[in-house]
C-alpha cells in the first residue's frame, strides 16, 4: 500500500469524506462493473455499489491494509451481491425471463450505438441476451469466479483469497463454468467459428 493511500485511509478513519471520495474514485468503476456483471441490471448495480461504499466507509476502521484495497472492495461487493440475492430468495438476480424475451429492445444505457443498420442492431442485441443468459445459467460460485477471472482479470490465487476458498476450488469452479458456457453458446460459437475461419 502506498504512503498516499495510507494517509487517505487514516483520514477516512477520522470521518473525512473528501478522502473517502478520492479512494472511491479510484475504485468506483471496478465496483460498479462487478456489481453489474453479477446482477445484469444497471439499477441494481448502482444500489449495490452505494451499499458497498457505505459498508467500506464504516469498515475502514477495521481495514488492516494486508490486502489491496481493490481486492478488499471486491470482497465486499461479492458478499453484498450474494447477501442481497439471498434476501430476495431467488437465484442471484435471475433475469433469464428478461433475457429470454427475444422481442425486447436493448436497454437505453448500453454504451455502443448500433448504428442505423437494424439487422446489425438486432444481432448485437441478441448476442447480449445470449451472453447474459449463459451467465445466469452458472451457479453463483461459478459465475463469481468466472466474472472475477474473465472480466476483472484477477489471477486465480487472488480470487481464492477474495472468496476465501482454496485455489483448487477456484480451478474446479472455473472449469465447470467453461464447460457450461461452451454448452450454452455452442450454436453461437459455431457461427462465430465460421466467421473467424473466413
Amino acid at each position: 500500500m502506498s504512503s498516499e493511500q495510507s494517509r487517505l485511509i487514516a483520514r477516512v478513519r477520522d470521518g473525512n469524506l473528501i478522502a473517502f471520495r478520492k479512494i472511491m474514485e479510484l475504485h468506483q468503476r471496478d465496483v460498479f462493473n462487478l456489481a453489474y456483471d453479477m446482477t445484469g441490471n444497471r439499477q441494481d448495480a448502482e444500489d449495490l455499489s452505494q451499499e458497498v461504499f457505505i459498508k467500506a466507509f464504516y469498515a475502514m476502521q477495521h481495514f488492516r491494509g494486508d490486502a489491496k484495497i481493490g481486492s478488499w472492495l471486491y470482497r465486499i461487493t461479492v458478499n453484498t451481491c450474494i447477501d442481497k440475492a439471498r434476501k430476495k430468495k431467488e437465484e442471484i438476480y435471475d433475469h433469464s425471463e428478461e433475457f429470454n424475451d427475444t422481442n425486447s429492445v436493448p436497454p437505453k444505457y448500453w454504451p455502443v450505438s448500433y448504428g442505423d443498420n437494424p439487422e446489425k442492431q438486432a444481432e448485437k442485441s441478441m448476442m447480449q441476451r445470449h451472453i447474459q443468459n449463459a451467465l445466469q445459467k452458472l451457479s453463483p460460485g461459478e459465475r463469481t469466479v468466472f466474472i472475477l477471472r474473465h472480466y476483472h482479470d484477477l489471477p486465480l490465487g487472488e480470487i481464492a483469497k477474495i472468496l476465501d476458498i482454496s485455489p483448487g476450488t477456484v480451478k474446479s469452479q472455473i472449469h465447470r463454468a467453461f464447460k457450461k458456457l461452451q454448452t450454452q453458446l455452442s450454436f453461437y460459437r459455431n457461427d462465430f467459428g465460421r466467421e473467424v475461419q473466413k
Partner: protein
Amino acid sequence: MKCKACRTLFPDAVYNELPEKKRPAFHAHLHECESCRRQYDELKLTLGIMDEKERPQLSETDWDQFWQKLSDKIETRKVDAKAFTSWLGKIKAIFQFEPKWAVQIAGMAGILFIGILIGRFYFGAEPTGIKTTSPAFSMNAELAGTTSAYLQRSKVVLLGLVNFDPQKDDPYVLNFPEQKKISRKLVKEAFVLKRQLRQSHQEQLCRLVSDLEVILMQIANLESDYDLPAIEMVKSGVERRGIFLKINIEEMEKNQKQQMESEKNIPKNSKNKI
C-alpha cells in the same frame, strides 16, 4: 502429457498463465492431439463471445450524482449515530443515582414487585372451567327460578312430542289436547318472561325462550290431534334450533354455579365453627 493433464491446464493457458515449465509439453500435446486442440480452440472461441459483453458506461455527471447520494446517506447515518449516542448518554445520566446500594435495593424491590404481580396473575386466579358470569345467575334469584321452571315445563312438552313415533305409539297416549293447552299457557308466559330477561340483559336466555315460543305456538295451533305432517314439522323445528341442547347447557351452567357456591360456603361455615 496425457489428454486429462492437458485439459486441466486450459484455464491457465487461455489467460496466458501457464507455468513456464509446462508450456512446451502443453503445446506439444496440442500439436499431436486433434481432440484436445479442437476443445481448446472451442474454449477460446467461447471466451471470445463472452468478451462481446457490454456494460453501461456511467458519465461524470452520473458519478457526481452517485457521490451526492452516497455522501447524503453517510451524513444521515452519522447524524443518526450521534443522536443515538446522545440519547443513550441522557438515559444513562438519568439512571446514574447515588449511592449505588440505594439503586440496587430499589431494583430488587422492583423485581420482587413484578414477581408478585406475575404470581398473582398466574396462580391467584379463580378455579378454571366455570364461567363466573353465567347468564342464569347474574340475574335475580326469582327470575332465575321462573326461567328454570319455564324451561323445564317446555322441555316436558317437547320431549313427549319428539319421542312420539306414529308407527309404534298410540296417538291418544300423547294426549294432544293437554299438550296444546300447556303450550298455549307457555306462549302467554313467554311474552312476560322475555321482557324480564331483556331487562336483566339475559340475551342468550331471551333468544332461547323466543325459539321455544315459536315451537310451542306451532303445537298450540295444531288443527287436529293426529296431524302427522304438522307434528313432523314441529319435531324438525326442535332439532334444527337445537332446543334441547340449549336447555341442557343452561341447566349444566346452573348446576355448576350452584356447586361452586356451595363449595365456597363450606370453608366459611367450618371456619365459623372453629
